[in-house]
């Protein structure tokens, strides 16, 4: 087993990994940029080394510097967390070349799954579906018609150079097809200067279902069931749950076996996630492999009882997965809500700044993986994720109530957060019924707007606070006369005594 691991990351995931290391008796080396000199993750490290200025390029993305400090500290392995260098095959290779274990897939598998075309080909070879459609530009109307009939309506026409919805047309029947192609071509031409379009099956009301897989260096592979991550804002997952309300036992087993096939075909090692799109007719299509520990990994841990980060370390150290597929089971229901520093009342604008007051949720079935503390100045340089609120309960109904109550008691003051927005999602009928898909937030915009009535109690509170200043002073004894006298602390160090 490793004696010392360097964690090439920051925030909540760096703390998550540090905890797993310490529980294995492994010493941890943390790294920090200029902006992170006072960051919370350093409080969980046995050593802390500076890696560059505040920009991600100069620090957390700086491969040679990170390899250097790992050598300097004598770390035998590096855990990359998620984001930054986690899926960078050059980094994995640099680790391999420096005889430092990269806690993640081998660099060859990492390259393969990072290449969209190569990974789609690999997946198809083992009989797992991808979204059917043209592999390149459509030639003529006949070609489009044939393909549309082959994959079945509805289909979608997309600009080859496209992105952001420009040149896209959903087509529900053959009689609309020709006109849609022409419209798509016109729009593509004007947006990208290239009229090329192609066609694929349109997955209606798609649900994002992913499977957690573990594979060791001895060829043992198991899946740890699914996570549903269909609640997304701007393609960013914000709420995840497991089990998915959309799949049953039979489909779960089928998709789980498909995910294992994908991982085996890629000769992938360590923890990985196979992402699928699921439609309303039980069809599922491979999307991609996420070659890292996922932000949403805790919900799998809550229902299976398996510590995924610990498994990552054990697998990287060459240990065998001793349990068989049949040894794993889902118990109860887990939901994660990602807490971001952003303002839902102002177009989700990022909101760095000082945390004046912090009271994180706690209690039965509640897990908080947090990277923040009261008094900390959230820097503007990195991802806005602050922490993750995860709940477990005996069933989905209780889990939703539990996370909703926990959000009510998750208090971060001084910056804007999405806590209230997350709670509003939990309270929608659609979410409660499990009847949602990846367009949920767009389609339920009006139900997610903050209710105006809440302001009444806030204003009354503000008025009471303003009026009650004197009684506070006496009631709670904050400002007694003793505190304005000279005290030994002042004589010693000149502290400004400022009780509150």
């Amino acid at each position, binding site marked *: 087993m490793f004696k010392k691991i360097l964690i090439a990351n920051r925030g909540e995931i760096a703390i998550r990994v540090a905890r797993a290391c310490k529980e294995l008796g492994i010493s941890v080396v943390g790294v920090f940029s200029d902006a992170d000199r006072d960051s919370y993750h350093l409080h969980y490290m046995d050593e802390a080394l500076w890696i560059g200025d505040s920009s991600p390029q100069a620090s957390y993305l700086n491969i040679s510097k990170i390899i250097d400090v790992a050598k300097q500290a004598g770390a035998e392995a590096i855990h990359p967390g998620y984001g930054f260098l986690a899926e960078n095959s050059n980094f994995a290779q640099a680790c391999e070349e420096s005889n430092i274990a990269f806690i993640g897939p081998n660099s060859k598998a990492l390259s393969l799954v990072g290449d969209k075309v190569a990974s789609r080909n690999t997946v198809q070879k083992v009989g797992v579906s991808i979204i059917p459609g043209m592999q390149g530009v459509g030639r003529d109307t006949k070609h489009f018609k044939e393909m549309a009939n082959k994959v079945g309506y509805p289909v979608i026409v997309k600009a080859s150079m496209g992105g952001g919805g420009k040149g896209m047309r959903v087509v529900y029947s053959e009689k609309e097809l020709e006109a849609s192609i022409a419209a798509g071509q016109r729009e593509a031409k004007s947006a990208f200067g290239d009229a090329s379009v192609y066609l694929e099956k349109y997955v209606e009301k798609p649900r994002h279902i992913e499977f957690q897989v573990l594979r060791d260096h001895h060829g043992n592979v198991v899946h740890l069931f699914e996570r549903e991550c269909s609640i997304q804002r701007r393609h960013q997952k914000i709420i995840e749950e497991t089990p998915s309300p959309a799949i049953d036992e039979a489909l779960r087993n089928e998709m789980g076996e498909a995910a294992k096939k994908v991982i085996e075909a890629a000769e992938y090692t360590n923890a990985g996630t196979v992402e699928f799109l699921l439609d309303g007719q039980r069809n599922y299509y491979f999307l991609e492999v996420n070659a890292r520990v996922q932000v949403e990994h805790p919900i799998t841990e809550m229902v299976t009882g398996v510590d995924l980060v610990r498994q990552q370390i054990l697998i990287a150290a060459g240990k065998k997965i001793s349990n068989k597929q049949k040894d794993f089971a889902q118990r109860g229901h887990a939901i994660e809500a990602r807490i971001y520093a952003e303002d839902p009342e102002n177009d989700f604008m990022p909101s760095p700044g000082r945390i004046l007051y912090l009271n994180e949720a706690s209690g039965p079935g509640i897990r908080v993986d947090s990277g923040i503390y009261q008094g900390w100045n959230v820097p503007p*340089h990195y991802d806005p994720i602050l922490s993750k609120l995860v709940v477990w309960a005996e069933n989905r109904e209780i889990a939703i109530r539990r996370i909703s109550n926990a959000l009510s008691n998750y208090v971060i003051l001084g910056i804007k957060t999405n806590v209230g927005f997350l709670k509003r999602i939990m309270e929608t009928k659609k979410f409660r019924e499990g009847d949602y898909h990846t367009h949920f937030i767009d389609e339920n915009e009006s139900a997610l707007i903050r209710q105006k009535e809440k302001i009444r109690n*806030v204003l*009354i*509170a503000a008025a009471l606070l303003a009026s009650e200043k004197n009684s506070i002073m006496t009631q709670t004894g904050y400002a007694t006369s003793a505190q304005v006298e000279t005290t030994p602390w002042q004589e010693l160090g000149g502290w400004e005594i400022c009780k509150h």
Partner: protein
Amino acid sequence: MEYRFDHLNETFTIHLTKEKNGFRARFRDDEYRISDLEIQENMISFTIHGERFAIYFARDKDKNYMSIDGELFTIKPAQISKSGARGISTQSDNSVASPMPGLLVKLPVAAGDKVEAGTTLAIVEAMKMQNELRAPSDGVVKKVNFKEGDQVDAFVAIVELEPPASEK
């Protein structure tokens, strides 16, 4: 006593009267009886007609951040124009500022440049999000207060404009 607060460009008024067992509050056309008021360091709680409310708060120099049932509100004392209360300096109408603090990654204009409405004046990046700041109207760049690579605060003028020469 009357208390006036600003919240998201709106001004709200609360009338508060001390009574024997608490307070009477008036908001819009309704009256509320408030009892069992408790104020702690960062918490205030009270009962309105039998229902209990707990609100967390933290104060900055000019703002009160409050949280109720997970919803955040930032409340300021209302700017009282007739009195001598000092206003907080904010951006002027003919300047452009970022709605979020962040890194000034692009600043394609310089003092003296003529710009049309909609021209990108600056790009500010924070937490992996880029925000483009555009000219609200035609004009001439009067002053540029930062340079590329600077860290800028929210609501601080980055570029100041003046009307085009012809309008002067």
